[in-house]
């Protein structure tokens, strides 16, 4: 098994510095100009009556930390999905997670317009879990349904079904615009309560991912090899998918749909770190978090003074970089 320990160690070793840098950038540059002294004061002598202090603590820090966490969540889920399905095009969305959430949110907006945002987040999470449950039920019922390819196909089918029903309902009740904003631009709405909500999920999901990473490496060699090596593949897949649901479900619920992070970051991590998921998963997490935090900073300035949906920024940066990687590293037998 090829892996590049040096590069991985470099990424993980420098990550604290990079993370602090990303947080700094994110806190320093926003819609309003706030100088460094004020930020220091906000941190050490917080004054609730001072608007700038409130902005720093209530909007910028949660946003920076939220972006880091969500980026890490999405990238880790992407890495896991790519590992267990052995499909380099797999990303969390392939299991219908986002579509399930969109379905639940649409129903919620139409029939329970009185929901608080916390309830909406809960609904989104239930929706994600529901779609995964559907995919798994179908997979276990169909012969050979648990093979990676079939599962991906089932995920896509269920996802498409749910999202088309959701679109039909949204169009009929004319809430499409609100729904599209719910999904495309929510990072700026993050506040401390929501970020705190994400932390327990982060701990469980990320620990599970790292604990499973060795087994995922084995699984990524192929189902047969994994079975011959004595691995309980079904159990591993269940647990891995479980952590994907937790990580992606909470990201979608908190920040909406953010494309490309779950697809591209794991590739970048693999290009740099090699084929061992014990390195790929943590590297993906670090790179994904930093990538999303930086994209979030950019999203405030692309269309200043208005906010730009972050998905636009991630794809603007992600696509060219991905093409560049394919061009320069494409000779190697990976994708």
């Amino acid at each position, binding site marked *: 098994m090829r892996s590049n320990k040096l590069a991985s160690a470099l990424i993980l070793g420098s990550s604290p510095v990079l993370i602090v840098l990303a947080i700094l950038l994110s806190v320093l540059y926003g819609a309003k100009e706030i100088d460094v002294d004020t930020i220091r004061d906000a941190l050490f002598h917080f004054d609730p009556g001072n608007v700038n202090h409130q902005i720093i603590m209530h909007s*910028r820090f949660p946003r920076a930390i939220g972006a880091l966490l969500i980026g890490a969540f999405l990238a880790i889920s992407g890495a896991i999905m790519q590992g267990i399905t052995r499909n380099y095009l797999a990303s969390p969305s392939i299991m219908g997670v986002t579509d399930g959430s969109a379905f639940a949110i649409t129903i919620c907006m139409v029939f329970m317009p009185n929901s608080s*945002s916390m309830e909406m987040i809960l609904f989104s999470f239930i929706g994600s879990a529901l779609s995964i449950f559907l995919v798994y039920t179908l997979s276990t019922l169909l012969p050979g349904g648990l093979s990676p390819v079939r599962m991906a196909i089932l995920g896509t089918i269920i996802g498409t079904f749910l999202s088309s029903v959701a679109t039909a309902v949204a169009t009929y009740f004319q809430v499409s615009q609100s729904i599209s904003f719910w999904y495309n631009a929510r990072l*700026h709405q993050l506040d401390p309560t929501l970020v705190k909500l994400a932390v327990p999920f982060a701990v469980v999901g990320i620990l599970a991912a790292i604990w499973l990473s060795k087994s995922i490496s084995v699984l990524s060699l192929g189902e047969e090899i994994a079975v011959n090596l004595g691995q309980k593949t079904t159990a591993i897949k269940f647990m891995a998918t479980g952590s994907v649901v937790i990580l992606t479900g909470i990201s979608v619920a908190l920040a909406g749909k953010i494309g490309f992070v779950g697809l591209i970051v794991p590739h970048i991590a693999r290009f740099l770190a090699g084929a061992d998921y014990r390195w790929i998963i943590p590297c993906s997490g670090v790179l994904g978090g930093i990538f999303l935090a930086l994209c979030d900073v950019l999203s405030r300035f692309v269309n200043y003074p208005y906010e730009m949906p972050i998905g636009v920024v991630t794809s603007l940066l992600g696509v060219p970089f991905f093409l560049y990687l394919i061009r320069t590293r494409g000779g190697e037998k990976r994708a």
Partner: protein
Amino acid sequence: MLKKYCAVLFVSLMAAALAACGADKAATTANGSSTSPAVAQEAGGKPAANPANATAESRTIQYLGKDYTVPAVADRIVITGSVESMEDALVLGVKPVGAMTTGGKFAPVFAEITEGTVGIGEKTQPDIEAILKLKPDVILASTKFPAETIEKLNKVATTIPVSHISTDWEANLNLLAELAGKQDKAKQVLQTYKEQVQELKEKIGPIFKDKKVLAIRVRAGSTFIYPESVFFNPSLYADLGAEAPAEVKQAKAQHLISLEKLSEMNPDYLFVQFAESENKDTPRVFEELQNNPIWKSINAVKNGNLFVNIVDPVAQGGTAYSKVAFLKAVKDSGIQQTK
């Protein structure tokens, strides 16, 4: 064996879910057809009248620099896609034969004029067949529609795309008035509005002077601002004489602004409208916003100059109905007293 039963159960569940969706649709079509005999009869009453009208007694109407040929008596008006025209109809007391629905129903604001009106599809999806059944004299569509839709509608009857730009509100009102023969009413509405604006501007002008006045819409918990000529902005800026903030002047369409930016703009007077479809009754999401310390720090909020949904959120802003309602609401809001 168990697996098989599970599979059957699952499939039937899915089928039931699908059927439920279908049933809903069936119900609406049934609804449509229950009214259609009456329509057919009515239409049967004057089968030849329509085409005869079109050839013998037609007239030309000018609207926004374009000529449209309509029957001399245009009683059968269908409104699709243009909430502006619905609002105008409400002001003039015109009952359309067919109008678009929201989620299968007419919005309660329009109850007065939609009695006996047939639903002809949703705002953005006119049901051409339903419109055809109504044999309309003229169709009022929206400039938001793509050209193909207008063309299709044109095959049914003369279709006039009604402008969605707020500043065309007078033209829109006059258009419907001319069609329905209610020019006097329209004139009166415009006259009263102008007088009232003048009156209110004199009182409120000094209060708004050198103050930042802003109208925003809250949608899915995010805040949006609009260009100077859209939404309630013409009422605030052009009519009542407030100075438009730079961010509004710069806006080209609906734009999302962060709370942080809103707090930097720090408006002294803030008008908040919800999105049409959400939080109408109990605005929980908005309550959360109001608990946000950044929101609380905005001048308008601190000084009690926050005005929430002072007109029905369905109102588009740039129509006679919206403008009259907004003016009245501002007048009643007590801004004049706060000095």
